[in-house]
């Protein structure tokens, strides 16, 4: 099957200027009350340059050509939309998996890094920095840097370097320098702090490839546009498979929210489509070890953006927790804060255990080992009151290779083969 990105009513979103809709960013960089660019002056010039140029660059025919060509020939897009038969039987609905796990490097993250590296080249940048949690964004960034021959520095929480060790090795083999973030809980938030500080110290030649729909405007909008290819393809693939472009439900996990933003993007204005985002509840929402931002958070400022944020009464950011390094973040992107506040999307929470169970279930039923992050989305199928006529798309944001250590540690008895 080949998908021509420019066909039909779903030409790639990045071609279009944001149409003023209630779920699009406004000219000041806000989604409703959330967003903005709360950055120190040291970052102003770089962020302003990006804000002034990103839409123009993204609409250049040459950019479009290179972007779509790389997505097709290098990433392997379109990613399949797979009707998961046994999973569908089990939950009594038609369940499709959007196979972002089959992308080159194993997750949706590369859709964004391809876009941003092309942008960085056009901005004349020589050096790339990134933060990473699960390491998928770090790998995707190191990959495009190798591809384009650019210097790459990735910040990663020291704890995450331990729990996602295979990805650290991959980044290093790809030529990236991986710098451990030692502050705070030594996870994604702290890695992002260090990446931002690096950018403060290198204002001339460096572009910061943020890995999710977080950060100061225009990052959330830019990353959402690059990831919107996910829902553009879903619509076209559903049309071919079911005769309708619109599913009844779209599910995706939310760390910062980029795979969810991409999976929701072209459905935002179609209110018949239920958008369901799943956050990490860690050991339980009220256990004190959780990353359930929409439940535990209040409006605040993190990493340059006003959004929902887990914090103390004094405004100190709370160290989040999730077994999954990619969801272990105390905020969510401002688009999600807005979708939550307006009720356009529903935010559910899955615990570590629910995610593990869902990962083992998918493996058993479909022969697909999902990333622990993606397993959070799968984990909520059981809570949806599904009916046979429902068409559910789950964004399988990544594959589970990086999580094998964790999976083996929690392997249920029935999986243990006798020696």
């Amino acid at each position: 099957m080949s998908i021509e990105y420019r066909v039909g009513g779903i030409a790639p979103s990045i071609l279009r200027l944001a149409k003023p809709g209630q779920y699009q960013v406004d000219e000041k960089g806000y989604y409703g009350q959330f967003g903005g660019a709360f950055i120190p002056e040291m970052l102003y010039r770089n962020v302003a340059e990006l804000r002034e140029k990103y839409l123009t660059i993204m609409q250049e025919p040459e950019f479009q050509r290179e972007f779509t060509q790389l997505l097709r020939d290098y990433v392997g897009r379109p990613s399949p939309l797979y009707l998961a038969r046994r999973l569908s039987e089990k939950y009594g609905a038609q369940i499709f998996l959007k196979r972002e796990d089959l992308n080159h490097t194993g997750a949706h993250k590369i859709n964004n890094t391809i876009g941003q590296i092309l942008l960085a080249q056009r901005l004349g940048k020589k050096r790339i920095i990134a933060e990473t949690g699960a390491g998928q964004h770090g790998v995707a960034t190191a990959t495009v840097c190798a591809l384009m021959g650019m210097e790459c520095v990735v910040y990663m929480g020291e704890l995450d370097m331990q729990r996602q060790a295979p990805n650290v090795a991959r980044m290093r083999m790809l030529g990236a320098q991986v710098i451990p973030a030692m502050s705070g809980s030594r996870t994604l938030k702290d890695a992002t702090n260090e990446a931002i500080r690096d950018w403060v110290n290198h204002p001339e030649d460096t572009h910061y490839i943020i890995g999710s729909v977080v950060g100061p405007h225009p990052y959330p909008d830019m990353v959402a546009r690059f990831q919107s290819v996910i829902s553009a393809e879903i619509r076209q693939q559903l049309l071919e498979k079911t005769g309708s472009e619109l599913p009844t439900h779209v599910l995706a996990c939310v760390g910062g929210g980029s795979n969810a933003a991409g999976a929701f993007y072209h459905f935002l204005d179609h209110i018949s489509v239920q958008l369901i985002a799943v956050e990490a509840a860690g050991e339980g929402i009220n256990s004190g070890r959780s990353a359930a931002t929409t439940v535990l958070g209040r409006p605040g400022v993190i990493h340059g953006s006003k959004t929902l944020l887990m914090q103390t009464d004094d405004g100190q950011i709370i160290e989040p927790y999730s077994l999954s390094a990619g969801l272990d973040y105390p905020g969510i992107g401002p688009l999600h804060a807005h979708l939550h506040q307006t009720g356009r999307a529903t935010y559910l929470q899955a615990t570590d255990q629910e995610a593990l169970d869902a990962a083992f279930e998918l493996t058993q039923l479909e022969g697909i080992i999902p990333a622990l992050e993606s397993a959070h989305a799968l984990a909520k199928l059981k809570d949806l009151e599904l009916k046979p006529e429902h068409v559910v798309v789950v964004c399988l944001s990544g594959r589970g290779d990086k999580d094998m250590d964790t999976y083996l540690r929690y392997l249920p008895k029935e999986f243990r083969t006798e020696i």
Partner: protein
Amino acid sequence: MNRIDELFARKQKNVLTIYFTAGFPQLHDTRRILKALQDAEVDMVEIGIPFSDPLADGPVIQQSSKQALDNGMSLRLLFNQLRDVRREIHIPLILFGYVNVVMQFGIERFLDTCAEIGIDGLILPDLPLDEFTHEMASLCADRQVHFSFLITPETSEPRIRALDEASSGFLYVVSSSSTTGKRKDLSAMQPYFQRIQQMQLKNPFLVGFGIHDSMSFQQACQYSNGAVVGSAYIRALQEVHDRNVERVTRDFVAYILQPIRSTF
């Protein structure tokens, strides 16, 4: 009259401002440090409100913020410590903090408390100009609390003018694009400081970030009205093993100022 304005009316050169993080090294050192700085004849003090994720700060101030928070510091407690500070401290006081902490406290309540206590100025490095103009400018003006924006070598001239226009008290000139605490040779930055001086801005300007000894202080002051020292003082405080904050402060200020006194 705001004490910052009084200061600059009286003194236009070599104004020494020192930054420290509230709640560091010990939770209740705030008043003692302020007194020590005043006794050492520092011109103005920037009190840092600790924040869990200080993006503009290098390792030294990050560490002091973390320790302060671990000690139990909060904005509420800081305000309590400062309640009757004006009985003994007469030099201008500035609060330096990140916008989230202020937002959670409530902007209006924050400014009311600042005015009550006698805080003269504010620096919130991650508050955008637009937000300031719409949310804070008139509230600050009503209470005669000044607000200083940062500029860097990357800030364009029209933007410098806009930030100067929105600022009051003084403009904060970041010595080079960096986080706090990077020691650097400022001789290469002289054309930048000179350019700012020649712009004839509305506000006096202070140079900060990376000022750590008498040499860098002198270089920072050549074209400016003065300089801000932060991380270097925090480092000195880290080394106060006998808890003699007074002696350390006196020695530190003498170390920063000495050649200046003979040169100018």
